[in-house]
């Protein structure tokens, strides 16, 4: 395993809430794709049915945190400062994917954009922009 793969496995295994959601992730080279299989406990609208808006937000926030954690060794988990979540389409009863793009990584603060999609990469269900506080390992 490469260092990022090792860190990815460790980060995901350590967080109880990641297991609660049922989230996993794969690394292809240096590109991480986060994966959220559909599960009944993630439903927010029983009529459609659709994923809870909070689930999509949570999944994308966790994708951003994981991306930052595997990029470089951090003394502790990054902390979320703020996030803006945009909902574009209902999250249907399907597997959801997400990728994070680190727009800027400073000494203390990172800016990350995330996009989540289901069947079609070009038809995202939701997007997130956020700032995160870093504690670099010295």
């Amino acid at each position, binding site marked *: 395993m490469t260092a990022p793969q090792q860190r990815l496995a460790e980060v995901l295994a350590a967080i109880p*809430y990641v297991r609660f959601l049922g989230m996993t992730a794969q690394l292809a080279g240096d590109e991480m794709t986060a994966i959220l299989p559909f599960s009944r406990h*993630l439903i927010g609208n*029983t009529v459609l049915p659709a994923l809870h808006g909070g689930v999509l937000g*949570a999944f994308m926030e966790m994708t951003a945190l994981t991306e930052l954690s595997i990029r470089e060794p951090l003394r*502790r*988990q990054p902390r*979320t400062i703020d996030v803006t979540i945009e909902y574009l389409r209902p999250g249907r009863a399907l597997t959801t994917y997400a990728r994070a793009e680190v727009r800027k990584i400073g000494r203390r603060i990172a800016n990350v954009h995330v996009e989540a999609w289901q069947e079609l990469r070009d038809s995202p269900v939701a997007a997130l922009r956020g700032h995160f506080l870093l504690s670099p390992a010295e």
Partner: protein
Amino acid sequence: MTGDAPKTAQHMAHGVPHAIALGFQFVSADNGVAIMKMPWREDLVGDPETGVIAGGAVTSLLDHVGGMAIGSAFAAASRDGATTSMATLDLRIDYMRPAHPRRDIVARAHCYKLTHTIAFVRASAFEDSADDPVATVQAAFALTGGGAR
């Protein structure tokens, strides 16, 4: 006013699988202001070093209580018990500080403006006092029908 909460609020408190999975508890919903509680749970922890509950769980709580505030504002405005469904358009969350480990998180939302198509909501999450929030939210929701227009 926990006894005669509008139908939308009742459904949102007890009929939504993700709300049940996170253990949300209905506190009140009246005239555009809704309050819910999320008890601390080991499996919702986001940072195992500190035991602090995951930001994502708080996001779900704030989104949910926002929807409930809209349901109660809509019921109050329509005066005939009409209900509406809604979809979150955007949600901005600012995290003031980590939540205290092993403490219930309370979320309070206020739907301060309701048009025919859009609802605007402010919300915050805290343990004891709204003056010392863990997180604050500004959100807009689209009303997607189901009730009187």
